[in-house]
């Protein structure tokens, strides 16, 4: 990206090419391996159950059934991949944070609805993981920081 020095550009050219190739390869791999959730009668049933669970939990804006089917399918998708695991816990904790995407990211006192959805998904799609998940979210401190 230097506009002044041809030498460094030449010096780094193959690094840039390498980066482009790696990027391209991963995009191709991603396009082949990534699969959005399949529509099925089971997925429809689960979506209905989730909508009911969310309404019971006090959600004001419930997602459309079609959207839930596409994202969560019949098995809950990525949410139900070991939700009680320490790394899943670390991921959740990292999302209860400020709007920083750099090293200034800091934890906050999250809104009480922060884990409501995830809890409902686990309850409906992978109830066997519910106890593990609850073991670390039930102790969290919450507040009403989002305007309804």
């Amino acid at each position, binding site marked *: 990206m*230097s506009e002044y020095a041809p030498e460094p550009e030449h010096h780094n050219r193959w690094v840039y090419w390498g980066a482009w190739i790696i990027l391209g390869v991963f995009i191709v791999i991603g396009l082949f391996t990534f699969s959005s959730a399949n529509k099925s009668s089971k997925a429809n049933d689960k979506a209905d159950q989730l909508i009911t669970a969310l309404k019971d939990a006090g959600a004001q804006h419930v997602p459309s059934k079609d959207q839930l089917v596409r994202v969560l399918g019949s098995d809950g998708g990525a949410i139900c991949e070991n939700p009680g695991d320490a790394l899943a816990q670390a991921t959740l904790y990292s999302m209860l944070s400020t*709007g920083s995407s750099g090293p200034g990211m800091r934890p906050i006192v999250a809104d009480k609805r922060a884990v409501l959805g995830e809890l409902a998904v686990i309850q409906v799609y992978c109830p066997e993981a519910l106890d593990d998940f609850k073991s670390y979210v039930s102790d969290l401190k919450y507040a009403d920081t989002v305007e309804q």
Partner: protein
Amino acid sequence: MSAMDMPAEQPIAASRAKAKAPTTAWISWVALAMMTTSSVASLRAAPTMAVYGLACVFLYLVPAVVFLLPTSLVSAELASGYEGGIYKWVSQGISKPMGFLAVWCQFAMTIFYYPSLLGFVASTLAYVINPALATSGVWTAIVIVVVYWTGVWVSSRGTSGVAGLASMGLIIGTLIPGVVLIFLAALFLGQGNPSAAPMDSSHLLPAWAGLSSLVLIVNNFLSYSGMEMNAVHVSSLKNPGKEFPKAMFLAMGLVLAIFILPALAISWVVPADQLSLTAGVMQAFDAVFAEFNTQWLTPIFGIMLVAASLGGMLTWLAGPSKGLLLISREEGYLPPYLQALNKHGVQQNILVTQGALTTVIALGYALIPDVSSAYWIFSVITTQVYLIMYLLMFVAAVRLRRNDPDHPRGYRAPMLVGLCGVGLASSLAALLIGFIPPSQFGGGSGWSYFLIVGGGALGLGLLVPFLFYRLRKPSWKQPIPAEGEAS
């Protein structure tokens, strides 16, 4: 690491001859603006902030006024007058030990940043390839180690390569997907759909929940931390006095746009309650694309976000370590081994030592459940440490303007003393708010939290640099490489 070929004891002439320093590697001010933007902003935070709907504008604008503006304008003035970055500013404005403390705080903060950033990279790649990998410690450890050391290798080749890849990462991983996201959201509204988040005046401000809201607002100041970091590369600009301020203004505009517009766009399409259905950033983007029946975009977005994260990581690898090198050579604060340069004039041994430490921490994060689940506390400690640097920077800026008013500066920040006052007060507020326990601490004792964070910040931010300072040796002093050679 055979490229480590400039032992500290060698005379400068011999060292230079052996090092065969390349010709000055200039970077453009646009590239520097891209590096700065890449260090600070990406789309990673957009789903988190979309939950707040229209209030996310407030949550970004207030910190922009009280923190982004002071840090950007003050560092623009300092960099346009004094080459070398934070260490030079604080050394000349306050004292050399304080200069070392400032650059140490900037450097130390990054050590705990890389594992969490690379953990995000590992989980995003897993989401695209096979979601089951996301909770595999081995997968996470492999990704962290391979990607981090590749980054060290790229950084050790010089600033121009970092600038190129960081710019590439920003364009591919943030700007293009950001524009796509905004376009889709505008299309959504254009088709007559109502916004998922209310966009009326009653939702301009976040709900007031007392101290919790204050924690949210003040902690968000730190979203803009890092704006000053790339000033260490100012000598890589052809005309630093004029070009650095231009780079800062462009970066400020880009950072604001990247933070606010995509978060707003997501809030138009996905209801806040649905965002909480997601166990990570990628699921939130998947939910957006599901609305448009374009979920094939999800893996492409995932890889693009990874590219942006890696571009940002490169800038953090190259910046603070270079500042640490410069003051250490000048004052002999670090042992000769750590001051050695490679043939590109880069502080390779600092990078490698930092890499070894980061690898240990990262392996702990990936493989030891107790570490990963408690890792969030390190981000609190390190941001506390980083704030010490900001306090020093604002004090130094005022002192330099007063004690050295005629020093040539390419840019003079308007109302500098006022700006520094606001910046200082904001940094102090963020430092104090950092002691309030967040959600993750649950019902634990406030005092024990205070002791953990305070003890950690004192140890990392003051004790370690104090030890380096006490153990310094005059014989460790070395000539600073001529400008451009260390680029």
